[in-house]
């Protein structure tokens, strides 16, 4: 790898770097001149420049204490910072060529870094003063370099560009050297840019931007949030499923009594159970409404006697008591519908002294395919009756038993309706009253 010689221009001298040595961390970093015992007055500033948290060298190199020897003294100022920082990084990567006390250029010198600037903790290069003076002091050295065909890199802050251009306008040597590319002038924003220019990106990598880090964190947080929400939903779904699946199983197995008991428990249970019961009822209501919409009911009066035929014309709201009735149930939907109909008297049989034990239930059941009609003959009766019709898309043998119980015990009607609703079956209740109508004849 190519080795670089680092030069520190000052207002008095052109200064080379003799040596850099890692010292015990207890020791404060020092700058000395040509291996002398006396520390230069800028040593405390150099120590602050090295030692973390104020300094940058410890952060860049990973060691807190150095002794650096330079060829000529530097008494004040801070423009040495840029060159010293570059020298430390080169030294760490073994591409720094040291100068001798009396000879800045050695036989090993391949390329020169002539650098002047201060650096802040973000490694941004700041403007320096007296640039013209530093360049004029370095003229002999620069001429010597070009004479020996040694490539020179003048490294400055971008904020010194105007200063440099004004120096350049009066300096033919610099113009020629830049034209012939023996001198490259690098105006930089930060130290990373130098290593980009020198194609040494691997030596000093730009840290990942903080924004990017937060962006990454944001992504990670988003992912974690999604996972968290998914897990939360999975747990909730599992909880809901554990409560819902027994209902579905009971429904599938037609274990209605237990299903109704469970639903009743849910309605008075915790929030989840209440919500599940609500949704279950809602779905069953939708199903029942769908079946109800599929069914059309029509009462058709008739009488075979010619004299009464005119009294039994269909479509009238009131029907003469001499008329017989047919109940026409039509399926206008696509699916087949099963039907159960119970006709029972509205009179209390006990009140009129009729024994109900031997009474045969007036229950009809059947199946109506799509666009077919089912006709139920409601025999003429002088007593008011109620017709209770249940529809379902599946045949359920238990419905007959329930209707029989209703027939025997009218008070069970309400319970049966609840049960029917819960199971998602459709139903209709029609009441046919036997009334006396008084008309004004005059």
């Amino acid at each position, binding site marked *: 790898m190519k080795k670089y010689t680092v030069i520190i221009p000052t207002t008095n001298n052109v200064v080379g770097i003799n*040596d850099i*040595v*890692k*010292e*015990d961390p*207890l*020791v*404060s970093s*020092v700058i*000395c001149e040509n*291996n002398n*015992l*006396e*520390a230069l007055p800028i*040593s*405390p500033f150099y120590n602050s420049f090295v030692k973390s948290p104020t300094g940058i060298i410890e952060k860049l190199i990973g060691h807190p204490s150095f*002794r650096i*020897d330079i060829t000529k003294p530097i008494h004040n100022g801070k423009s040495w910072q840029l060159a010293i920082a570059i020298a430390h990084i080169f030294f760490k990567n073994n591409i720094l060529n040291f100068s001798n006390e009396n000879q800045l250029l050695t036989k090993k010198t391949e390329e020169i870094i002539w650098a002047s600037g201060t650096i802040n903790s973000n490694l941004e290069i700041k403007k320096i003063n007296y640039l013209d003076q530093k360049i004029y002091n370095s003229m002999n050295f620069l001429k010597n370099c070009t004479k020996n065909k040694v490539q020179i890199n003048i490294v400055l802050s971008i904020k010194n560009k105007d200063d440099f251009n004004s120096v350049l306008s009066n300096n033919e040597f610099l113009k020629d050297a830049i034209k012939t590319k023996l001198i490259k002038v690098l105006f930089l924003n930060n130290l990373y840019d130098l290593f980009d220019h020198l194609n040494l990106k691997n030596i000093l990598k730009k840290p990942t931007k903080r924004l990017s880090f937060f962006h990454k964190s944001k992504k990670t947080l988003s992912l974690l949030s999604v996972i968290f929400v998914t897990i939360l939903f999975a747990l909730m779904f599992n909880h809901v499923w554990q409560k819902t699946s027994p209902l579905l199983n009971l429904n599938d197995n037609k274990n209605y009594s237990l299903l109704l008991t469970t639903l009743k428990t849910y309605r008075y249970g915790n929030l989840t159970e209440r919500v599940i019961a609500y949704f279950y009822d809602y779905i069953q209501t939708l199903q029942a409404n769908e079946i109800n919409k599929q069914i059309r009911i029509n009462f058709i009066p008739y009488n075979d006697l010619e004299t009464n035929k005119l009294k039994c014309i269909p479509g009238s709201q009131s029907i003469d008591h001499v008329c017989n009735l047919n109940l026409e149930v039509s399926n206008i939907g696509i699916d087949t519908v099963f039907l159960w109909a119970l006709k029972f008297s509205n009179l209390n049989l006990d009140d009129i002294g009729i024994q109900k034990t031997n009474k045969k239930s007036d229950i009809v059941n059947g199946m109506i395919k799509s666009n077919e009609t089912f006709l139920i003959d409601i025999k003429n009766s002088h007593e008011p009756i109620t017709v209770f019709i249940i529809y379902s898309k599946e045949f359920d043998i238990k419905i007959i038993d329930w209707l029989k119980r209703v027939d025997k015990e009218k008070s069970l009607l309400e319970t049966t309706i609840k049960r029917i609703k819960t199971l998602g079956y459709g139903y209709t209740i029609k009441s046919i009253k036997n009334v006396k109508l008084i008309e004004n004849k005059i």
Partner: protein
Amino acid sequence: MDNKDKISDTFLALNYLNLSKYYSKSKLKSKLNINMVWDVYLNPLKYQNQINEFLKKKVFSDAYFLILKNEGCIYQAKLNAASNDRVFSRSSNEFKIEIVKSNKNEDVYYLILKIINDIDLQLLNLYVICDNESDCIKLPILNDKQAQILIKKSDNFFNLITNPNAEIFIR
């Protein structure tokens, strides 16, 4: 300094040295210019380059260190016990000294001085005295109550400062 002040300082110095009682020319083993001792004490910067020469004279150094001790300085006595014949770390209530070898040169050491408490005295020199030998080194400006001096192992100062029997004065 006028003559009146000189006389006053001389008697004050004699008082410190407790020599006034016994002062007689016949008892002196060597010449002592008490004016000079007092002047060195009062103007250390003026005699910075000569002070080590003066301290080579035992009578001068005895008188000088006595003045320092009584007039005000920070001081560390001989160590009571030391496991080695060389001591690279010394500590007292007032200051701490660490002597660390340089990685650059085996003959070079860093003397790190840390003052523990705030002190009103202007600290210019570090004096070390051991077995009738003494030496002095100029202190750099203290930074955060800390100073660092490069010393050579081959120098007498190194031998004295690392000697457990050495007394240290900072003033």
